[in-house]
């Protein structure tokens, strides 16, 4: 297809792929969302765990805990080329599986991705787990006796290095680094690539390792929950005590609406607009009044040409930390007022917090909500924090078909992104 033949640069989502704590397929994730079934369970982080952190949103049916790729196991229904696994981090394995799902879901083949009008945007934090193995080798044996894959399998960017080669991407290929807003940025700029006509199709993937090296350092910031139950993550609840970590991968195929129409494929949703703004406040903490996030939401509404009253549901970033949830609640009040706000929930209550992958995971959840006509409930909410009481928090999933959904993400440095998904 010639790029000049495309007239409608609206952006639609035509494929989803999910490897997550609440399911390793869109259908499994959908069922978990409707029933608010938690993916959080006891996690054996280290042989001797002195952190007091005992749960995570675990990834089932994979074992990527071995020190080298040759030990890793993944479900039999996938086949990952062994020569390609040599350069991957654990989350690279999740990502390939999620990407293969999304490609199939969009009625594409792997070959359809390898052309000049298809690009790749990724987000991950790299792999501290593998980095440690390689650095130990460096300290013990010197620089020359190390795995030649030590760099490409570990550093930030490992995901786009690997997937760009794996799927033989020939369009744009890059990674995004804004901590827990990373994959929302990846989606937003994928949207811009298609809007501008530079690309017609984008594969966007967020993925994270799930191991002690990626998650437990957050305990030093005192932002991880010490609760040991499957309901440890409880955004907006008075008794929340921090987030629960998770990993996995979420993949989305974005295409120009014209291309999707010509291919005759169903779209889950349109990515109608987005906005971003920085707090300019703290290296790690959210702005106490939610200033940056409020600006990001306002800009997203303007970009999507929507009034705030038209948003029916906000998939909140709320990670279940004391400061962050209140900050977002205040940001929502700034934009939507305190009466009759949209429905709000944070699906991190059942998924855990997927860090840089969170935006992609929650965008996929928004797409499922639009396609299947429901609003995910706010799990584990027993006593609403009085500072969040103005939010309309559904304690169970609702059979309400939202036309417009907003998804928020916030990352270190006060980086905020809001995406708006609409029924196609």
């Amino acid at each position, binding site marked *: 297809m010639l790029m000049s033949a495309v007239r409608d640069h609206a952006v639609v989502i035509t494929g989803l792929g999910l490897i997550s704590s609440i399911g390793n397929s869109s259908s499994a994730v959908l069922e978990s969302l409707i029933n608010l079934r938690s993916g959080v369970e006891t996690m054996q982080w280290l042989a001797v765990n002195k952190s007091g952190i005992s749960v995570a949103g675990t990834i089932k049916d994979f074992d990527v805990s*071995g020190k*080298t*790729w*040759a*030990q*890793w196991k993944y479900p039999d229904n996938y086949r990952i*080329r*062994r*020569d*390609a696994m*040599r350069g991957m981090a654990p989350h690279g394995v999740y990502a390939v599986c999620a990407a293969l799902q999304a490609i199939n879901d969009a009625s594409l083949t792997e070959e359809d991705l390898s052309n000049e009008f298809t690009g790749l945007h990724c987000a991950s934090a790299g792999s501290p787990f593998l980095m440690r193995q390689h650095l130990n080798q460096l300290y013990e*044996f010197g620089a*020359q*006796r*190390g*795995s*030649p*894959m030590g760099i490409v399998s570990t550093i930030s960017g490992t995901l786009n290095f690997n997937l760009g080669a794996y799927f033989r991407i020939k369009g744009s290929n890059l990674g995004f680094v804004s901590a827990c807003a990373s994959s929302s940025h990846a989606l937003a700029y994928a949207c811009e690539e298609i809007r501008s006509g530079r690309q017609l199709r984008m594969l966007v993937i967020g993925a994270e390792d799930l191991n002690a090296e990626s998650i437990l350092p957050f305990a030093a910031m005192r932002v991880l929950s010490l609760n040991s139950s499957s309901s440890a993550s409880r955004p907006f609840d008075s008794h929340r005590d921090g987030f629960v970590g998770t990993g996995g991968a979420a993949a989305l195929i974005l295409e120009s609406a014209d291309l999707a129409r010509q291919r005759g494929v169903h779209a889950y949703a349109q990515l109608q607009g987005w906005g971003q703004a920085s707090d300019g406040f703290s290296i790690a903490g959210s702005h106490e009044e939610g200033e940056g996030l409020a600006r990001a939401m306002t800009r997203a509404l303007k970009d999507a040409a929507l009034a705030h009253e038209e948003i029916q549901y906000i998939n909140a970033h709320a990670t279940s930390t004391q400061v962050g949830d209140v900050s977002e609640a205040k940001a929502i009040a700034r934009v939507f007022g305190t009466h009759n706000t949209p429905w709000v929930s944070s699906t991190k209550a059942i998924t855990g917090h997927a860090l840089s992958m969170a935006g992609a995971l929650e965008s996929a959840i928004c797409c499922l909500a639009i396609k299947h006509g429901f609003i995910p409930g706010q799990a584990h909410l027993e006593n609403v924090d009085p500072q969040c009481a103005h939010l309309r928090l559904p304690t169970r999933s609702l059979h309400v078909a939202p036309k417009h959904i907003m998804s928020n993400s916030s990352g270190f440095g006060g980086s905020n992104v809001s995406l708006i998904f609409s029924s196609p």
Partner: protein
Amino acid sequence: MAIAPEIAAEKLDGYPVEIIEAYRKFYQSEDPRHLDDVLFGLLMFLLAEPPVVHLSTLPDTAKLREDVGVDSITITEVIFLVEDLFEITVPNEDLEHITTIGDLRSYMRTKICS
């Protein structure tokens, strides 16, 4: 000096058992044919499309890149594994001269067995 077979088995966990067994046999016998089985077994395991015949049976003149499809990163990874197992160092200048199956076999036999 080759590391003990049980330590090698840990390092090679996930690799084909034939390689681990060949390593053990070489460690016990120092028979270079078992070294070939380790070396070419590793290489076959790392290749995207290994040849249908075992690499050790290919003629010495077979070119690693053109005939077998071994790219530079793959040969570097095999060298790393061999360095780790046999506690040797392969200098960069030596690597440049390893271009065929025979080069690889004779270099490693000389380096390790001597």
